[in-house]
């Protein structure tokens, strides 16, 4: 059992080291600089931070790969011993550095896993580092790893690995941060929504179709955002011949959501800035009347198609100056 526990440490340590190196590299790529690293590098003078960060990352990568390479028969003996001793020393030094960091810069994260390690160094981070140092030192003198001899041994090995992973996860503040980032949805007040998107959504909306007749330009004269709403102002006109046409502004407020945003609209007098009533829309026909008209329209289209079929190929339709006798169906078409 004890040997099994020691054997589990090799892949675990390797995964931790390679994971740390990968997340640090990801941060460097994202930020675009090596000296942007977090953690104990802040304890060094400015000119040394970059080389220390690079050396740290290279060391983690080298030891992680070395642990895997020397786990079996290939690196048995001195190479395996050196790599495991190196890993143990690295974690011991890291523990000491984190204690120092906690005392001198309590606001800084450990930087062990790049962007995920921004929480200030606490007892969990320190315990994890000490545990990993102990784990690395426990592998000194371990014989080359062998595949498990039976299913029961394999299951036990996996169980031990899972238990230790659970302990390490419990000691990792990064896990909570990673889960938060995975399931994070930005509030609408902080969401970046391009203005083009709002305009496109507006032009597809019912509100736009309803009020487009009032607009005199399709480019907004003003546009701004406040919290979850983007406001677009279009020039327009309202009134009729009797009361006289007046300059107006149509204001649309588009909710900043990516799909089917809620839209409000208001009509404002351009001179006074006061809201005015929307002009009355043409009265819509009754539902039954609309159904009846639809049937008549279908009959009309059928009649037109039949006429097209009966006409011999090459024969042109009647000239406009020679009007054909008007039928009832054509009168309906004109109506529609």
């Amino acid at each position, binding site marked *: 059992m004890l040997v099994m526990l020691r054997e589990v440490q090799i892949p675990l340590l390797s995964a931790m080291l390679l994971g740390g190196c990968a997340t640090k590299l990801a941060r460097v790529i994202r930020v675009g600089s090596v000296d942007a690293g977090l953690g104990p590098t802040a304890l060094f003078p400015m000119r040394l931070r970059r080389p220390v960060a690079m050396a740290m990352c290279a060391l983690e990568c080298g030891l992680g790969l070395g642990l895997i390479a020397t786990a079996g028969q290939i690196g048995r003996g001195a190479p395996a011993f050196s790599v495991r001793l190196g890993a143990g020393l690295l974690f011991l030094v890291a523990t000491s550095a984190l204690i120092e960091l906690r005392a001198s810069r309590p606001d800084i994260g450990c930087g062990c896993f790049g962007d995920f390690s921004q929480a200030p160094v606490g007892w969990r981070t320190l315990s994890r580092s000490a545990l990993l140092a102990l784990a690395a030192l426990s592998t000194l003198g371990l014989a080359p790893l062998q595949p498990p001899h039976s299913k029961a041994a394999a299951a036990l090995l996996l169980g031990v690995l899972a238990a230790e992973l659970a302990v390490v996860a419990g000691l990792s503040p990064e896990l909570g941060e990673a889960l*938060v980032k995975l399931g994070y949805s*930005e*509030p609408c007040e902080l969401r970046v929504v391009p203005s083009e998107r709002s305009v496109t959504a507006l032009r597809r909306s019912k509100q736009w179709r309803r009020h487009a007749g009032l607009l005199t330009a399709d480019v907004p004269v*003003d546009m*701004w*955002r406040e*919290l979850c709403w983007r*406001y677009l102002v279009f020039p327009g006109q309202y009134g009729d011949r009797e009361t006289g046409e007046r300059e107006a502004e149509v204001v649309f407020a588009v909710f900043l959501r990516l799909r089917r945003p809620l839209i409000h609209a208001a009509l404002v007098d351009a001179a006074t*800035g006061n809201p005015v009533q929307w002009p009355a829309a043409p009265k819509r026909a009754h539902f039954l009347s609309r159904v009846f008209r639809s049937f008549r329209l279908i009959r009309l289209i059928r009649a037109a198609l039949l006429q097209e079929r009966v006409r011999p190929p090459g024969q042109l339709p009647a000239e406009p100056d020679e009007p054909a006798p008007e039928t009832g169906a054509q009168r309906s078409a004109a109506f529609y």
Partner: protein
Amino acid sequence: MLKARGERGCCDRCAGGTGTAGAARIARRRLLKDAVFRPPAALTPEPSDWFAPPADIRAGVAAGVGRGGETAQETAPLPRAVTGTVLDVSPQVLIIGDPGGRPGSEQRFALTSDATAWRGAQLEATELHEGDRAVVRLHPTRRGVADRIWANIGRVTGTIIEHTSEFMVVDEGVTRPRQIVVIPPRAAGRIQVRFPTLQPGYLIDIIGLRGPAALEGLIPATSQPAYPAGRLPEAPLVSGHVPDAISGSATWHEPAGEPPGVLGVAYPALDPATGCVEDTARGHCRGYARMPYLAVGSVLLVRNDCNGASCALPVTGCAAVARLFNDRCVTCGTSPRGRVADLTEASFVALGGELDRGCFNATITIGR
């Protein structure tokens, strides 16, 4: 980026947009927004009062706070701030005005034994010189009595571009000229304690005496962030809705390009779609604090947590440099990290801030 008709592509405003045209536009936006939503008038001051200086105060002599009546002012009468040039000073009277202004345009303020002044250090009000540029905070209850006077105060907040043994060149954003800061030997130690990395790319925030060509840096306004300006750490994520009230540090800036005495606030999170015309030369897009996006003309209720004074102020610009700081204000207690408002001189003084301290703990509420 979609452009509104007749607009500059980069932004929905230009430098100096806080002038008459800018104020009119801001007022118009409030009207149009109200037309859509008709919100309760709790946080919405009368548009004409946002920028309206008193009729007796002209350009060069500045405006007061709270003329909008109850809607623009949430609390007891705020002390008024007046800026101008010292024309004369005697043990009893301080005369402020514009040296080129017409006769009769100057203002007289009584000096009491309680009145204090600052010009690089605390001094008696009678030690002010003719020609000093002064910011005067009036007594909160006795109009016409000077309570506190700052003479020739200046502030440089930005990214160090160049540093020699004699001076520093600082970038404060593209709408402001590069600033030259000279640190005298007597202040060097004090400044280096708070700003240990005086290297290009790092942030600096120094208060001092404004000279014709350079600022004589005397007081560190904050502690230097540990990161270079281009490497902002990420702020904690915000889940759910952003809270109505956000606390942090409120700072002030010099009125470069703004009308003197204008009341307003530069806000660190303007809509990215409109951009930030005041951005620094390196163009850092996102600030430290995660704050809801607003536009020029949005109204904030800014509260000074140290004395309880509060006032509704319009957003007049983007705090291109202030948003890069993740510092705390420790004027009264320790504020949360990040600058939530960069006030104009007049607004800062009117809310009870001490210019030579650099900040006050503030809570902002966004007018919804």
